[in-house]
């Protein structure tokens, strides 16, 4: 061994542990940074994950714009659909974070993370926002494709900042929902089945493809309790200026994300055992 440590023992003793709030911010920042580093090393995932949203926009969006079958108010259907596709893409990215955490459990990475001075809620929040970062990368790519297809979005920086927050909150909720299910089922193959089973119903029972007003009553009721609907409404309101109650959208997204973080944190210990 050629290099000696300067202070071999207990470097923890020469400083005070950070306060809980600072530690939470630090951990979230760390997990987001790690996610960005992973994205930087392997950009192919963003590209491959972009194929499906492009198909939705180019094939479904352009066709249904011509058909004029779906009422989209005073915005072209392609514009209307694009906000839904951003939310869909964030959902698809986030919902499989539970599989990632089971993989990390099996590989021993989760065990090591749980032995660091990181409270479980901070670890889950970090993962949730890491999912948000990956979803944002996807959202930016979809926005660029949509702009190339002629969709007109707002250029208001505050509204774009709002879009960023909405995508982060939505991704945080679906990531934590997935981690919660992972904490219940504990096995990768079971979670994959459940993930596939809930993904499309969540998508179709939202306003991502069509307005709530054209849904049958029972579907409207489901849509009203589906956080994806609030995410899509907020994205449309911010990007296209369609009518929505933004405070309600943000409140629902924030509260559901907090609840999901709580549930996932409570069940994380089951994965470690």
């Amino acid at each position, binding site marked *: *061994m*050629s*290099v*000696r*440590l*300067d*202070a*071999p*023992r*207990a*470097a*923890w*003793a*020469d*400083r*005070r*542990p*950070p306060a809980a709030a600072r*530690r939470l911010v*630090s*951990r979230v920042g*760390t997990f987001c*940074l*790690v996610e960005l*580093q*992973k994205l930087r*090393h*392997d950009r192919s995932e963003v590209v491959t994950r972009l194929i499906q949203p492009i198909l939705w926009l180019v094939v479904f969006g352009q066709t249904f714009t011509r058909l004029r079958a779906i009422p989209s108010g005073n915005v072209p259907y392609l514009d209307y659909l694009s906000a839904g596709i951003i939310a869909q893409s964030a959902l698809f990215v986030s919902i499989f974070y539970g599989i990632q955490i089971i993989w990390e459990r*099996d*590989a*021993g*990475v989760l*065990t*090591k*993370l*749980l*032995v*660091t*001075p*990181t*409270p479980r809620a901070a670890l889950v929040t970090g993962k949730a926002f890491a999912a948000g970062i990956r979803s944002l990368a996807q959202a930016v790519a979809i926005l660029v494709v949509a702009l190339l297809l002629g969709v007109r979005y707002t250029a208001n920086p505050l509204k774009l900042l709002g879009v960023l927050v909405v995508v982060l909150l939505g991704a945080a909720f679906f990531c934590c929902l997935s981690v919660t299910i992972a904490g219940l089922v504990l096995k990768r193959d079971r979670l994959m089945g459940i993930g596939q089973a809930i993904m499309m119903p969540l998508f179709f029972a939202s306003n991502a493809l069509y307005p709530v007003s054209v849904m049958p009553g029972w579907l409207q009721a489901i849509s009203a309790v589906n956080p994806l609907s609030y995410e899509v409404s907020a994205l449309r309101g911010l990007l296209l200026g369609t009518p929505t109650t933004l405070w309600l959208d943000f409140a629902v997204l924030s509260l559901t994300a907090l609840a999901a973080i709580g549930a996932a944190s409570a069940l994380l*210990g089951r994965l*470690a*055992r």
Partner: protein
Amino acid sequence: MAAGPDLGTVPAIDVHGLTQRFGEHVAVDDVDLTVAAGECFGLLGPNGAGKTTTIRLLVTLLPVQTGQVRIFGLDVRRKAMAVRRLMGYVPQQLSVEGALTGRENVTWFARLFDVPRRERTARVDEVLAMMDLTDAADRLAATYSGGMVRRLELAQALVNRPALLVLDEPTVGLDPVARDSVWTRVGELQSQYGTTVLLTTHYMEEADALCDRVALMHHGSVRALGAPDELKAALGPQASLEDVFRHWTGDQLAGEEKGGLRSVRTTRRTAGRMG
């Protein structure tokens, strides 16, 4: 300066009446252990003996059901976060993030252990150099050999300058050269810096060479405890630590009883990840 335990006067590990049940199965049965600060202590035993469960209790991964565990005087039940700040932990599996470089893997843990920003780069460089990984530091960890991955994990575990290093079968699945490389570094760390080391291993000759004392576990309880030379001498003049192991475990084939399949899966997974 934050108040903390006096590392010189309290035992590094102090375990009393530790019992852990999984349903009807008693994985750890009334274990008492004391490990002095600066000691290298080996926890030995066949698969399913309760070594890994004991370690998981010590490192706060499992909540303590019965008994008391203190790390440098801190109760793991009440001071889990403070206990974690004192420790570096290397689990059985090769557990680095392959999609990050070696340097990024270590920096990740430096951040999670709140290594101050102004020291972080130097500290990361230091442990990478210590594990002879400087040249490979900017390569993706997915391209590392098994021995390099283990050394990278040691670098991650050392970046917070732990007072206690916990190694759960750190050489499982490694070839003899890589094993030797890992033990050389652990030995140097322990002898040069007085870091307390708690390890489990299946390789008796390695435990014999490295550990100041060992505890032999079987069916969840400690069957023999002492310096390897004492345990060997108690059995006979020519006895090896492997003979001591066989004496106390009844020559039981590893994995025939509890925990066998899980252990085989873990080993296979580890071997698979190393290619």
